[in-house]
């Protein structure tokens, strides 16, 4: 998990309602209402797509 539950400035994050989402058929847990890119990173998914011509991985930027 790549979440930051405790932060020296922002404090403790109150856990939101957990929801299950499916990424390429695989279930992962996300926090309700959060950005999808953040849910993917929280679950260690860095590749968002592969390019059409050279099949190279791409992530957030």
């Amino acid at each position: 998990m790549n979440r930051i539950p405790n932060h020296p400035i922002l404090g403790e994050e109150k856990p939101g309602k957990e929801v299950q989402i499916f990424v390429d058929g695989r279930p992962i847990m996300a926090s309700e209402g959060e950005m999808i890119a953040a849910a993917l990173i929280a679950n260690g998914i860095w590749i968002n797509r592969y390019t059409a011509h050279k099949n190279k991985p791409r992530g957030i930027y």
Partner: protein
Amino acid sequence: MIETELAIVGAGPAGLSAAIEARRAGAEVLLIDENSRPGGQLFKQIHKFFGSRSHKAGTRGMNIGTELLRESKELGIQTWLNGEVCGIEEGHKLWVVRDRSRSEIVKAKKIILSTGATENAVPFPGWELPGVMGAGAAQTMINVNRVLPGKKVIMLGSGNVGVIVAYQLLQAGAEVVAILEAAPKLGGYGVHTAKVSRAGVPFYVSHTIKQAFGTDHVEAVEIVKLDDSFKKVPGTERTLEVDTVCLATGLTPLTELAWLAGCKFCYVPVLGGHLPIHDDKMHSTQPDIFIAGDISGIEEASTAMEEGKLAGINAACELGYIAPEEAEVRSREIWDSLNSLRSGYFGQKRRDSKVSILQKSEELISYFKAMII
């Protein structure tokens, strides 16, 4: 078609400040933002701001954002979120796509463009790999979304964005392997730079990234020394193991709507490149179109808020809600504040550049006046 007196594009620090001033004066305001939350970049700025107390120095950016939203709510400012302004047509008509699904035309008597800026990228082999991202993107992930985009980070660029985000990455629990600076001198404010340095992060001046390695994700970068003319020095390469590369290599004003509206531009590298020429009331060269914030030159949220106030007050004045004498007095007060924000080693350059833009604006006005005669 919807009609309003004042349409403001962008609900960041500049747009919110403009909306608050104009609405408080009595103008009918419609504030439009493409994001689902207003506040622009303020909510990821968890550090304390600089300046004097009247500039809210010592207050964290996110708290300034909360305060602006509270004021705008109290004033009942009409706000469209998830609203992308895709065009400006003749007659001050804005084409807005709302909720990515339907078009709406907004006809406004006055328009303020406070669209902000976008991050610059620096290309090198491997720059497209997952794990290479703008420093601002990483900042959003850690401070707004509370997820860590990487564990071992290298920062390219030692300006304020670079050192502030590096420090915030440390606060979020990441390791910052190094901060690189292409110039021979560090670029950020001493206070921020010192904090990162005290935390043990090494700085490399006259260095850049030669390439990033990895198959599905960044695994390492090769850094290289630069000579006085910014050319790579062969034989000085070394490899650092990292999983994330953050690019803090400057910002560019988001000016598309100003181009579409026919505003005249000038090129000012110190302020981020091409930007609309504007006068001391934040008027562009197009009648009824004002600009404020990063679109008028890359600076800081504190200056953006002052410019927003200038635009809001002067737009409200032209709409007849503030007497010209009062607008003049209040504008002068804001200029005193802007001048003090633009002082010191870093501020003076921005102040000089702003003065040159105001001169251009005057030249242009006299040029067109001469044409008419």
